[in-house]
């Protein structure tokens, strides 16, 4: 399952309809607490920290959200590559 599919599954717990990329989360019927909860669900699933977590996410489109998660996953992968492979005694 790719990131987009997993996100649809997470968002699908709160929104019945399949979200198009340009659909704003607020227009999909999510309120400020829903998006906060959604952000924490995403963080837990992907083990990333989203820079936006509060109600500012509500103005995001579903596409914005996908790009944000992909960006955080890429940053996480970069950090993992940059980290030393062994520990210093």
């Amino acid at each position, binding site marked *: 399952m790719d990131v987009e599919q997993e996100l649809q599954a997470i968002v699908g717990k709160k929104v019945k309809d399949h979200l198009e990329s340009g659909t704003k989360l607020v227009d999909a019927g999510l309120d400020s607490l829903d998006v906060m909860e959604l952000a924490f669900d995403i963080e837990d699933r992907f083990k990333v920290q989203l820079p*936006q977590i509060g109600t500012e996410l509500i103005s995001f489109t579903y596409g914005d959200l996908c790009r944000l998660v992909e960006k955080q996953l890429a940053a996480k992968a970069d950090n993992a590559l940059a980290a030393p492979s062994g520990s210093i005694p």
Partner: protein
Amino acid sequence: MTEAHINRIATAVPPYDVHQAFIQFGHALLGGNERNSMLFGRMAERAGIEHRYSYLNPAAHPDAASTSAYAFYRRGDFPTTAARMRLFESQAPVLAAAAVEKLNLGAERERLTHILITCCTGFSAPGLDLEIMSRCRLPKSMERTMIGFMGCYAAINALKLARHIVRSEPTARVLVLNLELCSLHLQETTNLDEILSFLIFGDGCAACLVTADPTGFAMDSFCALLVPDTPDLITWAIGDSGFNMVLSGQVPGAILDAVREKSGQILKGLPISAIDLWAVHPGGRSVLDAVERALDLKPSALGASRDILRRFGNMSSATVMFVLEAMLRAPKAGALGCAMSFGPGLIAETMLFHASSDTGTGTSTRQL
């Protein structure tokens, strides 16, 4: 033209650390709503705040000399505005005097010519200006100015005014005070957004000396940036039960867009890389994240602001001065700085400054 300098800054906070107690109180206010309680707990974990201070004592058995936080904020009977202002009148001068004394003015206190005070969390008359002059034995001839109810950016306005005074009157010695008792304005509510806004605010006071003496930080220029169509995002109004705040979740996004779009205006054409010191008002973690993203700063650039947020929370107008005080302790001569605060409007008030060759001395924060 005479150059105005922030020679010294001193800070003080009240004696009681209330942050952890407030988190428990916040859960109680949510009244058993498990979903909201979970969200509140997680937001508290990532707020980037570990301590906030107040004159309200959260101890289970407070000493006789202190005011119990739980007696003041009794469920079902939160205090009136008048009751809150009575506490302000008794405690604000104590905190202000502590900060002024830490400036170690000595004989210099007789030479002070002006006092400027910013405050948006309490009012009375005769006010803080006269009370502080009396307590700190300041000259009775001082010119006094109160800068009231401007919110978190007021310190920058006060510095701007102090600079104008010194430039027009080079012998002027201006005492600037930024005092806020934010913890007096907690509201009884079950609204999670409101409780989250209470999670970030604490009490504190900064005092600084602005003169033409070439020590400390020289104030180079200022910029006031009004963000269009955002008057409803931060509001602060006097209610019957304390002062009421609206702090929209859209604030960080609006700040990000404005700072990114107007960075050239804020920096007067300087490249972002020219700035060594970023003294950004830590209005909350999301505000700092927004500025960091807007200017594509390294994570370490806002280290001083994040440290003040962690140690004291958002103390409204006093906060950016705490950040500047930390920077003033270890300045590099010639380093360029940009200070930035945000508040109702929305407005970003910014200041460019540089470290003088002969730097002043910072002081640690006094906890009363």
